[in-house]
């Protein structure tokens, strides 16, 4: 799977990176990334996840070729 992160998450992760591990769903991905980078745990907790331009829930089953976007809380305007 490919991961894209936005805004403040770029201070904690590369903007875009590959993950070849077997991670079954968004909840597991969130746990894995929080473990890898404990400084980002708080932000990841309140972030939203999207696949193919649609928000997905924590139980979304990740497919091997998915690109998963991780969005911190919006701050437009």
């Amino acid at each position, binding site marked *: 799977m490919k991961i894209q992160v*936005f*805004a*403040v998450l770029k*201070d904690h992760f590369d903007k875009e990176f590959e993950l070849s591990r077997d991670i079954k769903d968004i909840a597991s991905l969130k746990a894995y990334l929080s473990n890898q980078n404990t400084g980002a745990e*708080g*932000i990841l907790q309140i972030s939203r996840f*999207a696949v193919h*331009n649609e928000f997905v829930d924590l139980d979304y089953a990740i497919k091997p070729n998915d690109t998963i*976007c991780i*969005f*911190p*809380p*919006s*701050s*437009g*305007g």
Partner: protein
Amino acid sequence: MIRSAYSLQAAEAEIPALSATPLDVVALLAQAHHPEAGAVVLFSGEVRNHNQGQDVDYLEYEAHEAMAEKMIAEIINDAHAKWPLKIAVAQHRTGKVAIGETAVIVITSSAHRHEAYEANQYIIHRIKHEATIWKCEYFTDGSKKWGGNCSCCPPAL
């Protein structure tokens, strides 16, 4: 909620929700006239020269553009469903935005003014909180800060 062909064709359909170049407030306002609308409300969110005691140099807006465009269109549609609006448009800057420049514009018009004010506030509130757009403030001391621009929310991450 049936909308007149006028509003969709003349104004809303042509206005992109995101713009990498300075927003043309005058052109947008000119497009927001409607013969049945007695009230036009325009909100312009502008870059201030300071925020929470720090001198701002400039802002930069990052967006997930495809999703932001879709979400802003949905927010506009929801506003039309909630209020009898003649026109509702919104446009948000992306990229680097200088002090005094407009970061976001929302224009609503309706027969009576109450709806135009209400819908305008609804649209800007949802754009700020939901659309996949993030502000980064760059300060004159060289530091930067992501997000948390909104006075109604907890401090930045």
